[in-house]
């Protein structure tokens, strides 16, 4: 963000910008937002939420970091290739429903089962989660890619 401002001719503003507060709080808030996005993502099956909202929220957490620090620092913190993230998300979103043909049901018919895990008790396993991970990755990757491209910080 700083480098963008500098290129746009905001040297003076940049010198006056006091980053301490936003950098400190964003480090704390980042984790909270990320946890909340995971919570929303997992809530998605029966209650409002899901991969799309979760992905947007996760992206907004990273965008908060981008605002507080600059692109290079964030890249060092979270070394993820957004292109690969989108490809992986799309692949999960198409391959999982396609593979469900093997169960002999129509396209996109998800399968689920219940397993008993020692500490948590009975846990539902659902293929829709894998599909939703794909949505999550695609949405987060796309919004981050758009923000970094419009910000002009990615080479």
């Amino acid at each position, binding site marked *: 963000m700083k480098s963008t401002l500098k290129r746009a001719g905001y040297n003076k503003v940049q010198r006056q910008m006091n980053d301490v507060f936003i950098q400190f709080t964003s480090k704390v808030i980042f984790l909270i937002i990320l946890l909340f996005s995971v919570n929303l993502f997992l809530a998605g099956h029966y209650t409002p939420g899901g991969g799309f909202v979760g992905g947007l929220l996760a992206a907004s957490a990273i965008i908060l970091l981008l605002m507080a620090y600059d692109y290079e620092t964030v890249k060092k913190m979270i070394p993820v290739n957004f*292109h690969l993230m*989108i*490809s992986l998300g*799309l*692949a999960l979103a*198409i*391959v999982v429903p*396609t593979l469900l*043909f093997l169960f*002999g*049901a*129509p*396209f*996109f*018919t*998800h399968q689920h089962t219940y397993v008993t895990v020692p500490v948590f008790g009975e846990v539902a396993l659902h293929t829709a989660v894998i599909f939703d991970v794909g949505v999550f990755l695609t949405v987060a990757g796309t919004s981050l890619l758009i923000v970094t491209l419009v910000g002009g910080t990615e080479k």
Partner: protein
Amino acid sequence: MTTNILPMLPIILPFIAGVIMLFIGKRPIPHRMVSAVTGLMMVGIAAFNIYYVYKNGAMVTFISNWSAPFGISVVYDMVAALLVFTTSLVMFFVVIYSFQSIGYERERYYYYPMVMFMITGINGAFTTGDIFNMFVFFEVFLLASYVLITLGSRKIQLQEGFKYLVVNIVSSNFFLIGLAYLYSVTGSLNMADIHIKLSNYDGSLAIMTLVAVVFIFVFATKAGLFPLYFWMPGSYSAPPMPVIALFGALLTKVGVYAIARTFSLFFTSDTAYTHQVLLLLALLTIVAGCIGALAYTDMKKVIIYNIMIAIGVIIVGFSMMDYAGTIGGMYYLIHDMIIKAALFLLVGFIIYRTGKNDAADLGGLIKQHPVVGWTFFIAGLSLAGVPPFPGFFGKLYIVESAFDNGHTFSAIIVLLSSLIVLYSIMKVFIKVFWGEPSEPIELKDIKSDKLLFSAIGLVIVSTVFGLSADFLFPAFEMAAEAFYNPSSYSNYLMGVE
């Protein structure tokens, strides 16, 4: 099991191919291989699907196993089967054509994945049985087409791409509004279910007519009907040739398909008004297209205005909504998808070879390229609808239906438009291939074996289609039945409820 997977494959395959290419990264040669192989596979599967639908009737699959009026259903009837087959065929030839024409830089920046995603959207719009899902697939192929029209970032592309973007966003919004109206009237989004609900509909006719007008506005914008074609000649001449071929052959036809589908299934109560409006717009489109086709000597522009004439003719057939009219409409729709792609590819070859867009600057090309010249001649005859070629059968049925319904004037306009089409395309042929150029032309040395393979291949496909029109007639009869007898389309709901 087979009916679960077969109707989905034309949507899944190009999507998977696109994703694979995204993983491969900016390497054009593997991209070419993946897209060509996908194209071949899709042609094979679509051909098998036609056979399967012909033997067993429409394939229906309920996505996620939600039963019909509630979930999304994919209805792969004969109309969808024929259109998907033609789409796959055109896509395959255009992809082969792109190898030597689109340019290395565009190939690196994900040209082929975008083509694949666009085909996903187009096939989805053809096969879905849910009107909201159709809107979603419209957005899918429009998003990909925004990328294709601006890819390369030449000034003209950005300028026309922006126009295209604004026009389509506005019309998509109206699509959504129309859907909301329709849903508030019927309480359903499944097209077959809406048809059943509306056939027992005793509410106000005014609201249905309003919905019909909103839908005409939306699909007329996408298809390029008369008052709303203003964006088409500009936007379609901006991108490189293979993209124009894809757009001209496929995108406008999706709009035509949507008009045919909605006006046969939904708006059956007040046909005296809605279908008359459609007929009037179609005739005006033909006239406007004729004026454009006569006015220009720019080869791209001539063919783009010919798209408008063809769309007008198809809509005349569908606005009759009887047996002969819809068979003619189907024939002409399929014919036009193939021959428009072929003509764009041929013109593209001439443009790449000579570097000139305007037919008036050219001449005497028949000495260097006799095969291309005569192929162009055949394609021109086919476009105008001279008997052994497929355009003839479509026009025959459309004109017959127009006379039967007492629309003598429309029939005469359709017949006269054929003459103008023939004149406009022969004018291009004579200027480009005969005579002597006003100033000597420097022929560029380009690799052209794949260009010629695609262009001539499509003309051969069109000719074979014309010669086998009689053999294919039962399939077209079956396809047309979904339009003139819409209850045959909504039959699949009977088994479910």
